[in-house]
């Protein structure tokens, strides 16, 4: 935001809080919803909050890609798959035995992970960024992808290729079996 906005830091903080809360709310919805589609909506909400955080960190390209890829492609694909497979009514939440034990285990793991992350954040050394990559502009990202990180880029493309070939193989096998 250019100069002149009254209380620019305050607004930035408000945006940060809104993004973070959106993300948390989305994550909670994703975990606690009974219907899968609602969980996916939670995931989408979470991704939008994350995009807000990227925007807050002045990486607009990452923010937009987060929305384009995760909300626009991944969530839609999940919903599509669910819509084809999901039963009409959600399964009754089973209150079987041993639920308390599982709850305790989950709480324990969550506490350990949370404690670990918190210590890392508070005590760990924060590496100062070596250089700002030109505000995360498309050109800078493109150059970085095709020069510095070309190996990672190529490996990702191999993963995608494997996924495509796998999908083709499964689809072909299915057709053959039907015949």
């Amino acid at each position, binding site marked *: 935001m250019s100069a002149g906005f009254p209380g620019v830091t305050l607004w930035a903080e408000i945006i940060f809080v809104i993004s973070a809360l959106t993300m948390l709310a989305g994550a909670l919805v994703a975990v606690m919803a009974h219907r899968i*589609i609602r969980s996916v909506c939670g995931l989408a909400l979470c991704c939008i909050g994350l995009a807000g955080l990227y925007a807050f960190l002045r990486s607009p390209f990452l923010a937009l890609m987060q929305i384009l890829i995760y909300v626009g492609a991944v*969530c839609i694909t999940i919903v599509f798959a669910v819509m084809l497979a999901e039963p009409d009514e959600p399964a009754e939440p089973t209150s079987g035995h041993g639920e308390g034990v599982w709850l305790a285990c989950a709480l324990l793991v969550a506490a350990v992970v949370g404690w670990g992350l918190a210590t890392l954040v508070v005590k760990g050394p924060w590496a100062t960024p070596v250089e700002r990559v030109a505000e995360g502009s498309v050109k800078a990202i493109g150059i970085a992808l095709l020069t510095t990180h070309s190996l990672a880029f190529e490996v990702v493309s191999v993963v995608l290729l494997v996924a495509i070939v796998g999908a083709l193989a499964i689809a072909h096998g299915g057709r053959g079996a039907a015949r």
Partner: protein
Amino acid sequence: MTLPEPFRLLAYLAGVMAFVGLNAAYLVWVERKGAARFQRRPGPTEVGPAGLLQPLADAAKLLSKQLLVPPDADRTLFRLAPVMVMAPALMCLATIPFGQALGARSLDLGLVMVFAFGSINVMAIMLGGWASRNKYAIISAARIVSQNVAYEIPMMLVVITLLMVTGTTNLQEIVEGQAGGFWRWNVFDLVANPLMPVTFVIYFICMLAETNRAPFDMAEAESELVAGAFTEYAGMGFGVFFMAEYANILVGCSLGAILFLGGWQSPFGVFSGVGWFLLKLYALVFTVVWVRWTFPRTQFYGLLNLSWKILIPVSLGILVLTSVMLKLF
């Protein structure tokens, strides 16, 4: 008179919302009048001169109707879906440059932003269809997804081709790069790619499919699916979906005018301005209406075959051709 930046931005955003609202209301009128003319009948004539007040009457009717939520529906998502359809279109228009200095915000990533928020639209219509818990609506939702996934790919390929020519994703800069007469417009940029007009046609077809317009309105297909994803929506819930359809057409046509037809640049190199942009925009919008009432609805297989067997190979070929041409010349 220039307002300080934050207030200017707010004023422009309010202006964009007003623009979308007005257009959504009056494009319905244009659509009905157009449909009537193509079919040799008068269309709305009773409310106001030439039926011009018809959209207001429709709005009053829709607003006064009860908002019904079907008992089996997923209430939250059912209510949320119309909002989620409308909001992204407004976001997209915030970065569209209407004139040289007339645009809410000139973003370096304007084009990416339009596509990022444009993709939410599909999810919203699909959720509306799913949340209705209605067989027609769910069939329609499934159709919407496969249709949009199929047409997103050639659309992106076409846009990438264009990006290679323009070298920027800032919409304002894309328009400025086409200054100086209609032969400089991207659609006639035959040096970069002799198939540029074909690219424009592919963009237009994909835009029709992405906005679920006939001949690709498989989602609404009223002769087989009642009203598709909108079947259970009453009153203004339906009205918002209807408005959002026109808002999305507006976004698609604005983008088409900016990317291929030089935006606010005049075709003769002089007197560039907002008027030219609006002229191009409404020419494209009229073509959308024209196509809808001229071509019958395609079959769903025809629609998917068109995308996967014709548009994607052709646009991939154009992409390769453009990169070769750019490297050679």
